[in-house]
């Protein structure tokens, strides 16, 4: 039994590592090879050839691209991420100061959104077609089809401007009490939750409905089990795989949402760092942040696959 699962898991993980390597090639070529000569751009049109050559040597651009890529990859593996082109600070320091903030934001969001989404998704699948289901599903479609910044803008308008419950911006640096922390986190978490819950709820609902329509559930109903028992004891255990898959995939939407949310609320996280890096075209910073994001994304997607495999009873009882 375990042989099959282990083999599949090993395949998935190997595939993820391979993808990460491919991603690093793409990231490096887009940021460092394809745009042309960084030295020429920095010095402008009327630079002397000698100055250009000197700067190229200094920036290491006289080395052919594949070799530069290998050096970059090795450096990254050893934790040497280079220096920021604008501030001259080591990238690792910049990232280390911001990463915990982002992880905290993601963790708090996941903590709130997963139970809410699962409850809503299962409930609306069970009461399919009722006013509850229609209300929840329609709001989910509405949230999914508008940009994150609209949700954020509306949330600021309602909670910070009209009701004055929360501050519109968050500054994590000056947190002393639990109350302040709640205030700083409330808006970003609220907005991220809206987006994630909508995604996750839709996928959960689809997964549970898929099970409820299976013939064996009809059998359970015919034998006279209560609706509660039908769902909790019969349908849910079979829907665990797809639901876990949905949770992991939805959490990967966090990575996109967090870029907008950190910017709009001025939250000192890694996504804000990356956006600033992009607008200043600070390549070492952009490369590092991009690899962190893609790594996290691959971990979540692979986790989704792994959950699907492990929870599949057909594979488990082979």
């Amino acid at each position, binding site marked *: 039994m375990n042989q099959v699962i282990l083999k599949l898991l090993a395949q998935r993980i190997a595939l993820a590592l391979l993808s990460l390597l491919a991603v690093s090639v793409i990231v490096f070529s*887009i940021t460092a090879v394809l745009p042309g000569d960084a030295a020429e751009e920095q010095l402008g049109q009327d630079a002397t050839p000698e100055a250009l050559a000197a700067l190229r040597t200094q920036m290491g651009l006289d080395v052919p691209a594949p070799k530069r890529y290998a050096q970059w990859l090795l450096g990254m593996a050893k934790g040497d991420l280079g220096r920021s082109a604008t501030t001259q600070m080591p990238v690792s320091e910049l990232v280390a100061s911001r990463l915990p903030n982002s992880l905290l934001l993601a963790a708090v969001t996941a903590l709130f959104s997963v139970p809410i989404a699962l409850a809503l998704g299962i409930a609306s699948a069970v009461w399919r077609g009722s006013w509850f289901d229609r209300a929840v599903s329609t709001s989910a479609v509405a949230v999914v*089809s508008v*940009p994150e*910044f609209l949700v954020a*803008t509306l949330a600021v308008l309602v909670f910070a*401007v009209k009701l004055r419950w929360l501050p519109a911006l968050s500054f994590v640096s000056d947190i002393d009490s639990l109350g302040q922390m709640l205030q700083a986190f409330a808006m970003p978490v609220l907005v991220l939750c809206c987006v994630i819950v909508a995604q996750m709820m839709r996928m959960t609902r689809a997964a549970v409905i898929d099970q409820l329509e299976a013939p064996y559930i009809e059998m359970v109903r015919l034998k006279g089990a209560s609706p509660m028992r039908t769902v909790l004891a019969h349908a849910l255990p079979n829907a665990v795989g797809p639901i876990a898959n949905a949770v992991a995939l939805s959490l990967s939407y966090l990575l996109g949402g967090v870029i907008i949310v950190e910017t709009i609320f001025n939250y000192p996280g890694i996504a804000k760092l990356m956006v600033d890096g992009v607008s200043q*075209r600070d390549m070492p910073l*952009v490369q590092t942040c*991009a690899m962190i*994001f893609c790594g996290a994304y691959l971990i979540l997607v692979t986790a989704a696959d792994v959950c699907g495999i492990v929870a599949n009873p057909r594979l488990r009882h082979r």
Partner: protein
Amino acid sequence: MESSTSSPALNTAAPALPPAPRRSPLRWLAGFGFTGLLGLAVLLFWLLAAALGPWLLSHSSAGAGTSNVFAPISAAHWLGTDYLGRDMLALVIEGARYTVGVALLATLLASGTGTTLALLAAASGRWTDATLSRCLDTLTAIPSKMFALIMVAGFGSSVPMLVVTAAIIYVPGAFRIARSLAVNINALDYVTVARTRGEGTLYIMLREILPNIVGPMLADLGLRFVYIVLLLASLSFLGLGIQPPAADWGSLVRENIGALAMGGASVIVPALAIASLTIAVNLVIDNLPGRAARERGAR
């Protein structure tokens, strides 16, 4: 379809899917239902605004602003004024050209490329199929916004760059759907018959498979359009999309974010414009006549 190249044998030997019964356009429209028609109307409105908007406006928004900054909705300014006192209605209609136009171009490019590659993958050998699938799968390992940010960091931000970036991001999704459809069609008897008859790959791709996947691909095109509108708006909102003085709806939200504290119309209106466009397209797709609302995938 009735060109001379199609041999008469095609019609007798390969009775493909039975042709859909022809219905009058009015009956077809009625199939959308109320919500579908509503979506269609809103979509049509924005398409017209994007195509004709600049000629319909009596005065250009690019003109000097007034001192009337962040004015509320009034008879003179139907949608209020922005942070420079310019008329918001004119700005939103001018922005439609960028939001709708750029997204439409990128969508057509993405779906076109994706469908072409998928047809190629399905109709030609196993190696082409495997190589194409692997390459495009690799692209999906980068989250869409992240890829856009990397592209902007590398190449700067311009309209052609944005079109190409959005297209690259959404080619794999279109490819995957078109390929799974095309592979199914490719296994059907009439394709085998066409192959046996000695038809080339190009003929199989264009005359046998393509007509049978066009319908679902058009629905997918609409969905992809929504994703691209959202992506481009988000980029502009970050200040990394359409560059000033041009402004799409995302840039308008960014520029007027200062009005948020007063609850001004100038920040709400462009945001609602985006929402109305994307929700309208969703409504149209969900209510396409003769097809159940399909589960929408990731990305």
